[in-house]
């Protein structure tokens, strides 16, 4: 049972969906339906072509796509692609399936997309860019911009891919994606280790005078392990974040207060 118009989606349609997705995806984000109206906005012209204007079918489709929806904004059009393939083939009869598919896929897609695109890439690129920026070198920012343009390209090509391959795509890519995520986490963890050693610029300025002997505490610590102070501090904050009811914002303020107190007592200071 195809749609009444028998319309087949063309390249032009994918371009339009992609354009609307890239430049308008979350503009209507709200607490009630989150990306709900966004999903409808992105495919509205295609729905009109598939069902025809002012038909009860179109109204039913619009209502179905104006429901609660929220997933990772980098991979959402994969769901859109699978959805469009189904609706093109099955018409209004597929709406129930499509609604189930959307609700069923938004969770797993959010998990994959969030860990790669919303966390790992910003963390790694952000670390590189910030590391260079602190040395007053803007090159890392440019690098980040380039990487994000590549990500936009991926977002662009995944729609026709998902449309063609349908649900097989998810099954096929899942193994590779989990291997890739695992490798990326390894790299991320390693880089954080490296950053702890270079970018937490604090030292212990405390110098004890015991009789005639002067003990420079920082020097003693360096003899055990250079950069031990930053490592201990990160470990302490890591522990703090594991506490109940702790949020990152609260942790940031606690660190500021503790740093000011320790600095006033002469225990901690900014390294040159």
């Amino acid at each position, binding site marked *: 049972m195809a749609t009444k118009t028998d319309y087949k989606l063309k390249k032009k349609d994918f371009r339009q969906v992609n354009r609307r997705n*890239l*430049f*308008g*995806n*979350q*503009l*209507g*984000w709200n*607490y009630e339906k989150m990306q709900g*109206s*966004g999903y409808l906005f992105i495919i509205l012209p295609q729905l009109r072509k598939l069902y025809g*204007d*002012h038909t009860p079918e*179109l*109204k039913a489709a619009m*209502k179905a796509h*104006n429901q609660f929806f*929220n997933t990772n904004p980098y991979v959402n059009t994969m769901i859109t692609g699978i959805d469009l393939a189904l609706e093109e083939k099955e018409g209004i009869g597929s709406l129930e399936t499509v*609604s189930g598919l959307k609700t069923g896929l938004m969770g797993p897609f*959010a998990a994959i997309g969030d860990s790669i695109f*919303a*966390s790992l890439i910003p*963390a790694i690129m*952000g670390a590189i*860019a910030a*590391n260079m920026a602190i040395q007053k*070198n803007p090159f*890392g920012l440019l690098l980040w911009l380039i990487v*994000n343009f590549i990500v*936009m390209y991926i977002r662009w090509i995944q729609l026709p891919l998902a449309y063609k391959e349908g649900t097989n795509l998810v*099954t096929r890519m*899942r*193994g590779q994606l989990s*291997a890739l995520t*695992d490798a*990326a*986490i390894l790299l*991320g*963890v*390693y*880089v954080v*280790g*490296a*950053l*702890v*050693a*270079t970018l*937490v610029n604090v030292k212990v300025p405390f110098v004890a005078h015991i009789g005639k002997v002067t003990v420079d505490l920082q020097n003693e610590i360096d003899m055990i392990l*250079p950069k031990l102070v930053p490592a201990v*501090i990160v470990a302490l*904050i890591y522990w703090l*974040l594991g506490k109940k009811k702790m949020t*990152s914002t609260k942790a940031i303020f606690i*660190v*500021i207060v503790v*740093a*000011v107190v*320790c*600095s*006033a007592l002469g225990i901690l200071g900014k390294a040159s």
Partner: protein
Amino acid sequence: MHSDIAFWQVLLLTLYSMYQTIDDITIVSSLAQPVWAGLITGLIMGDLGTGLVIGGSLQLTVLGVGTFGGASKIDANSGTILATAFSISAGMNAQTAVAAIGVPVASLMIQTDILGRFTNTYFQHRIDRLIEAENYRGIERNYLYGMIPWALSRGIPVFLALQFGGSFVSSVVKVLNTDLQWLSNGLATAGALLPAVGFAILLRYLPARKHVGYLILGFTITALFSTLFTNVQTLGTAVAKVSKGFTQSFNTVSMLAIALIGLTFAINEYKHQVELQKQQPAAPKQQDDEEGEIYGDED
């Protein structure tokens, strides 16, 4: 040390703050990140270096903070704009500005973000009604109106703070530099310490537990090399002062080289994982079952 920010600068910064909100929810070009906010604000205020340092510091502070499921995150971008602008105009130390202005502003802006997202519910309701009326143009228009609350949620507070906050900030700076020197030093220390929070958040998120060995490896290699390189640099500078014939200069440790070592391990891990999946046909099958639930509606 004059504390005024010219009106055209206020205007440009406000426009940028509105643009970056929209960028971050649509194309995500990275222009909405704190480092870029630092660069752009630095350019507008005429001090690129300070902008980069403040942007970089705040970027590191929020390294592991993401928005998931529509939760509002600490808005380090707006924090960077105000911290950079006031640091340059009022002559505040960059690290002090990070802790004294950047972080408080960033966390206050969570409230305006929530307000913006809340306001958009109004347009959602209009869309609900327009579907009944079959007004296709109206649906699209009301959807696009959603960008107004988003843009204003950053534009209004940034504009007000830049336009009217200048004299307040410069009087604070005056006190910080004289009577409250200890507080100024403390805030600078806090600014230097804040990246540690970003790293800890990131380690919680990643999660680090599975690859803790590589955390230690990355840290140790870098700790040793950076100490070595810095010492050689110090030595080089000292020798150059004594001997005029000594013209060799030394660089700091290359972070790219250190990252490449990590990349080697990551590539191996990827290959290993793919091999494992090939060897165990049982494991993917289990995944299929799991997916059967998800696609249950398909049959």
